[in-house]
């Protein structure tokens, strides 16, 4: 069986190619994808939600987000993917100089993804919000 780092590397290669359906096919049936924070895109999605909510959200970008993987750190069934991303969201420029995706694999498939990112960038570039003094 392929090790965790190889499984995760292949998963991200497929994601970064834009083939979301094939990437999601390499996840377990009960897989979840969580985005940290309390933005409109934060929370935990199952596979159906990834296709019905996450893919349309990504498709709403004026310039698609380009993700580059910098490093994969792995131990046992867990891996952490360090990455960066740049694009133009529906409501503004979107840049994440540092992304961390924490994954768990099971039976050669990705079972869980938690996406750590700058939620302020999500609010301004994707959700159309801004921060002001309270």
């Amino acid at each position, binding site marked *: 069986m392929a090790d965790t780092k190889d499984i995760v590397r292949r998963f991200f290669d497929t994601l970064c190619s834009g083939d979301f359906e094939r990437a999601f096919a390499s996840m377990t049936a009960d897989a979840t994808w*969580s985005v*940290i*924070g*309390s*933005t409109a895109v934060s929370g935990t999605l199952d596979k159906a939600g990834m296709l019905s909510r996450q893919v349309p959200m990504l498709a709403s970008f004026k310039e698609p987000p380009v993700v580059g993987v910098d490093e994969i*750190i*792995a*131990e*046992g069934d*867990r*891996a*952490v993917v*360090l990455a960066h991303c740049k694009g133009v969201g529906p*409501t*503004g420029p979107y840049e994440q*100089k*540092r992304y*961390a995706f*924490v994954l768990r694999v099971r039976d050669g498939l990705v079972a869980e993804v*938690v996406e*750590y*990112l*700058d*939620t*302020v*960038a999500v*609010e*301004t570039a994707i959700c*159309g*919000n*801004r*921060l*002001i*003094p*309270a």
Partner: protein
Amino acid sequence: MADTREVAEKFIDRIEGLNFLEAFGMLAADGHYTVIGKTKASRTYNGRQDLFDNLIPLLSTFVEPPRLAFDRPVVDGDRAVLLAKGSGRGPTGPYDQPYYAFVTRVRGDEFVEIIEFMDTTMLETAIFGKKLVDA
């Protein structure tokens, strides 16, 4: 010399014990500590002294310091990723971080690199007195 997991676990013990100064003191004198995002606290602090002079004072304003609980770290060579959740109360609001990640690199018994990932919007509202509105 301590191995990567031992250094990570010492950091975890100190943070969970609210010994923040001792925990942050594990950054090497020439290490780098990065807080993600574009908040007032977000940047790379170059060296332990920069961290103590400029980040610690920003975080010392908590009304209730954040209490963090960690999972088992992900250790790979000199890399350790420390995952945690925690809450407290900042000077301008409740501080709730169910997803924290400290991505570290260990050298000897110190960290030469720490990148801290968290909900940056929570930092802005709980510590820096901001609120979200429609653009």
